[in-house]
């Protein structure tokens, strides 16, 4: 499942809220609708988009159909975010190093580069 599709599905505010609700664990559609004050068909529609994007999946537990988050989708998103995290961390290290090197009137301890 592509991170791009998951991102696209999540950028709709109601779907984002559904995902927040599902962080607490899988729930039936009626419960999700109630918590977010949605009509059930609306909730179902959003859940369908989320499941097509691979963000949620439907599981049968006992007699119930529960919707839960799919770990895979978040792994992809994580790897997308991790690349940026890594770049920013390096960037900040570089900035700090540069600022230290340029530090005004601080003894320049002939540090070799």
């Amino acid at each position, binding site marked *: 499942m*592509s*991170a*791009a*599709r998951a*991102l*696209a*599905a*999540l*950028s*709709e505010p109601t779907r*984002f809220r559904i*995902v*927040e609700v599902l962080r607490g664990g899988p729930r039936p559609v009626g419960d999700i609708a109630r918590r977010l004050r949605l009509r059930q068909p609306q909730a179902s529609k959003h859940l369908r988009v989320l499941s097509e994007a691979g963000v949620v999946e439907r599981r049968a537990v006992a007699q119930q159909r529960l919707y839960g988050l799919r770990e895979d989708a*978040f792994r*992809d*998103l*994580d*790897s*997308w*975010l991790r*690349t*940026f*995290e*890594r*770049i*920013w*961390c*390096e*960037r*900040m*290290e*570089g*900035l*700090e*190093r*540069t*600022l*230290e090197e*340029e*530090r005004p009137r601080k003894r320049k301890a002939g540090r070799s580069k």
Partner: protein
Amino acid sequence: MKARVTKNRARRELLVEQVVRASRERVWDSWTRPERISRWWGPMGCTTTVYAMDVRPGGVWHYCIRPAPPATDEWWCRAVYEEVTRPSLLVYTDAFSDARGTVKPGTGMPTRVEFAERPSGRTKITIVTRFPTVKDLDAAEERGMVQGFIEMFERLASDLAGGARDG
């Protein structure tokens, strides 16, 4: 001090916080002068060359990131400044582009950088950067593009890790 990074994957946001031992003015200059930013913008092992940097609302920052030889990749980016309040706030949208500065659709990343004074001449830098929205990702071609960036960055990350011992 290591940067603190908070990820909000559902909001597609990355929050980066860092305190540095330098005045706000110096940090601001590091971010807004071509000869200064190219020293650290990186990523590590890469060279950043700034071709344009017009730090005012609507102004353009056009730059290219090149990994160390023998790699011949070039990652061109073009940012447009939206808010410029020296020395405390910089808001711009950074996007992938080509050498002529034509932006690749769907790649804009709104970025907000705040510089706050801290005691004993330190500065706290707070960066919030957001990834493409559903509107940007409307066309399948653009979604493919984002996928391409994931791969590009992963390749970049593994290029950088090459030589380091993380498997």
